[in-house]
């Protein structure tokens, strides 16, 4: 199977993405940026070594990231593996922080559609309000767009009320043209969010792929009128990277995308750097790691 793809200007993308990373964001603007970055964060733990205790601890941190900094908001959601959804849901009950689960054979997605649907169904039944699915890269790379879309539609249906985030795993797609094409497929098939990466591949949400996907969202929303959210995940490991992603979103889609309903940043290590930088803007002293809880 072969397909024709719209051309994406590599050099132009790299240039614009880099240019939007050179803004000087200081003092009150930085504080505001950090508060927004925290409020749109999906605090994530996706390790084989995750336990109920670790997830409970992470949930406590999600609700109140820094007891010493009361103006820092709660994060948007906690993202865990399906087997720990129940634990997270219980720990987050009544807090306003949502429970998200990866599903569909995350991170590779190399299982049958039936297994993907069962995985999704289990997560939703245990209380997941958001589902992060992976597309079948195997089908996408073979040129089988119909199967990719069919799977997304089927998972969409299995989600019921839950929001669906579709991970296209940009690092495995090969080119920006394919990133844009996969984004469009996901949106056409009914994704509520499109998400860059699993965080398990070689590269994550680089500024360039973020820009390509954000432009795809812009074009799709203009054409169809349906709002689709964006989630940057993988490699957003510090404050500078997080603020860069916020600038990309603001300049491509506008201020109305800077809310948890339309934007997420998936991260685990970035949160403490955000808190340390926030503390620095208040005290004038560079913070130390021990100032904030690990998880």
């Amino acid at each position: 199977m072969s397909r024709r793809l719209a051309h994406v200007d590599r050099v132009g993308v790299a240039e614009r993405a880099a240019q939007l990373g050179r803004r000087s964001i200081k003092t009150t603007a930085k504080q505001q940026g950090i508060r927004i970055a925290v409020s749109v964060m999906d605090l994530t733990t996706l390790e084989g070594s995750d336990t109920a205790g670790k997830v409970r601890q992470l949930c406590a941190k999600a609700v109140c990231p820094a007891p010493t900094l009361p103006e820092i908001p709660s994060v948007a959601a906690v993202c865990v593996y399906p087997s720990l959804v129940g634990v997270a849901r219980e720990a987050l009950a009544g807090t306003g922080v949502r429970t998200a689960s990866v599903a569909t054979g995350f991170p590779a997605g190399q299982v049958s559609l039936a297994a993907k649907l069962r995985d999704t169904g289990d997560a939703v039944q245990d209380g997941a309000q958001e589902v992060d699915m992976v597309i079948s890269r195997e089908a996408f790379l073979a040129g089988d767009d119909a199967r990719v879309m069919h799977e997304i539609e089927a998972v969409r249906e299995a989600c019921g009320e839950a929001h669906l985030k579709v991970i296209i795993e940009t690092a495995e797609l090969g080119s920006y043209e394919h990133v844009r094409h996969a984004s469009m497929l996901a949106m056409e098939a009914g994704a509520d969010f499109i998400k860059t990466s699993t965080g398990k591949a070689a590269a994550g949400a680089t500024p360039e792929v973020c820009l390509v996907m954000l432009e795809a969202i812009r074009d799709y929303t203009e054409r169809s009128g349906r709002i689709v959210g964006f989630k940057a995940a993988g490699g957003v490991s510090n404050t500078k990277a997080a603020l860069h992603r916020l600038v990309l979103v603001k300049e491509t889609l506008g201020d109305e995308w800077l809310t948890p309903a339309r934007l997420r940043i998936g991260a685990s290590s970035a949160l403490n750097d955000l808190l340390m930088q926030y503390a620095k803007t208040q005290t004038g002293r560079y913070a130390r790691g021990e100032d904030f809880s690990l998880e």
Partner: protein
Amino acid sequence: MARLTVRKTYKLYIGGAFVRSESGRADPLGEINIPRASRKDVRDAVAAARKAQARWAALTAYNRGQILYRAAEALESRRAQIEAVLSEDGAGGGEAVAELDAACDVLVHYAGWTDKLQSVLGGVNPVASPFLSFSLPEPTGVVGIVAADRPALLGLVAELAPALAAGNAVVAVVSRSAPRAALDFAEALGVSDLPAGVVNLLSGRLTEVGCALGAHRDLNAIVDVSADAELGAELDRLAAETIKRASHHPVAGSYEQATEPALERIAALTELKTAWHPVGV
């Protein structure tokens, strides 16, 4: 054919790399430029030291000693060049040679201490209950050093060596009036198998980097040899605010002064950990 001379651009030493100041600034010293570190260079250096410290401390004591000894070897093999720099910067009449001798010897001296600290500083404690109680010295962590202005090289090495022997990582502000020898010494450290980031050397102005170092919360101790009462008081105040050990040392001008209370210098940058283990149960 006439040849253009290749002149050396002096750099800061941060995280194992030779870098210009993040601020892009430099101070002229005669005909050459010396980088003027900013508070952000201090931040980067402390981050690099923090990252490297655990790995340095986790090496065997014997290995740390070998690496310090190698630093002495590397300094020795560069002595002609560094002696020339020291003489140009004011150490005349055999002073430069004596300073180089002392600096190498101090490194060798402290290299010998690394695998003896555990026995000398720690040990089994007598307790009146069925427990085995023992204490071990552990490194304090990341140590900031405001080195003496003169002697430019020995003044730095005398503070650096005990901190490293104890397993600490170091961020040091080098001599202000003669920074070249210390920055040349960084090249010797760079080929000594010292893990990147264990030593970070900054040149610049004390008012700027000295206080920035003192104010960084992720520093565990600061050693001040600036002999500047005003700066010393400010560093004490900042150390109290950010909870770190602060000490003020007299300038070490000779091998004897740098090593005579060698154990005290090392012990001041360690923390004793005591464990109680049940016995006879």
